[in-house]
């Protein structure tokens, strides 16, 4: 099962294993990792699953959709070049070991 590391805004680090195909948003909410809310249930409709993806994994991710791009303009914490929505990133063997940082606020 692919591993994902979440680094909270205060620096706390958690690594979890996700069933293949589950999203980074689900990995956080289902493992009690605060700092990701996921209000819309993963339909790319709320921008409360905002993450900053570690540069080393940037080119391993599938490109973002137009909707994700638009939604990322609505994040609470500033959007950066490495901003993505956690519900749009699926855990796959290609991104095993991925590291994401969580923003200060989601809503």
């Amino acid at each position, binding site marked *: 099962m692919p591993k994902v590391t979440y680094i909270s805004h205060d620096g706390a680090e958690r690594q979890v294993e996700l*069933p293949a*195909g*589950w*999203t980074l948003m*689900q990995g956080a*909410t*289902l493992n009690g990792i605060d700092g990701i*809310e*996921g*209000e*819309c*249930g*993963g*339909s*790319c*409709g*709320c*921008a409360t699953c905002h993450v900053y993806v570690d540069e080393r994994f940037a080119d391993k991710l599938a490109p973002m*959709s*137009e*909707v994700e791009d*638009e939604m990322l303009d*609505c994040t609470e914490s500033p959007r950066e070049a490495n901003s993505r929505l956690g519900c749009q990133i*699926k855990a796959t063997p290609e991104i095993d070991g991925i590291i994401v940082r969580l923003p200060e606020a989601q*809503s």
Partner: protein
Amino acid sequence: MFRFDPYSPVMDADPFPFYKTLRDEYPCFWSEEAGMWVYSRYADIVTALNDWETYSSAKGNLVDELPNRAGSTLGTTDPPRHDRLRALIQKAVTKRALDHIIEPARQSARKHLDALAGEKSFDFVNAFSSKVTVDLLFYLFDMPAEGQQTVRDKAVLMVQTDPKTRKKAPEHIAAYDWMVDYAAELIETRKKNPGQDLLSNFIAAEIDGEKLHDREVQMTITTLIMAGIESLSGFMGVMGLNLADHGDARRALVADPALIPDAMEESLRYNTSAQRFRRCLTKDQEVHGQQMKAGDFVMLAYGSGNRDERQFENPDVYDIARKPRGHLGFGGGVHACLGTAIARLACKTAFEEFLTRYPEFERVEQQLPWVPSSNFRSPMRLELAVG
């Protein structure tokens, strides 16, 4: 032999013991009565929701699908078309875009509470929750005020199924046909006289320079009215029931109304109103030793996943401090409910007002009349004693 019959009135009233048997003994079960497979464990449902390529909605998502919806609405198309359609509406229904509905919702709640002044008991569903819901949806879609009650009655009827024939009865189909015609008329008037509302924007929208298909517009708007009205008032009925049955929780909310959103999330988990939806397999699958074929339907029992002890500790306890993140009350994945922010704001506002007026209440009937439906679970009537 264990059976799972989503048409049985016993199931409408209390599906939870059946779900437990499913989860523990038959996690991938063929239901003869439904003519489809049933997933009941949280993890299996989430896996299916994440994989729309395998679990398609394009053959319909209602357990008993209504005519002409498959392939033509948000809930019944697959990406990429689905995502394009959804993007047209999504922005108008995010939390930030919906501040404007709070005041109208509050005024509506107050008006209907005022009308109850002096009553010792009343029906929460018909005198309060459905009235507030209809007011709100009519405001949101800017629909003509006359005929509110009829629209609501039809929305409730069209989601029902006949427990004996295990099908939609003629009156259910008639209610649906009525709603389709109602939507068609609405679209015609809106085309002549466009406004700033969500429906006008959807009607005028284009994808890649092409107008949406007429059937798409008509069916999506029919579904928005149905989903908005029936789902929201049904859920509020369930939440009213939970607060009647759990005095401690209710008193905690009265003391601190900021807890209402937590109670709402726990109600969505504990007494899920949208119990079951379906998907269609696009390829053969083997799950828990069962061989399923492309073209088979799979029922996703959200109400069961939400009570799965593999995911939620003490799942049969209603605990408003639980904060059940990841619950399936709104489904999940690409098809997760479009109306989550509307529903959350409406519920919060309605219950703030209701609990201020009635901090103490209890239910009058022990046996409730449940909506006969293979999809939804909510009381048709909830008589509350308040005095």
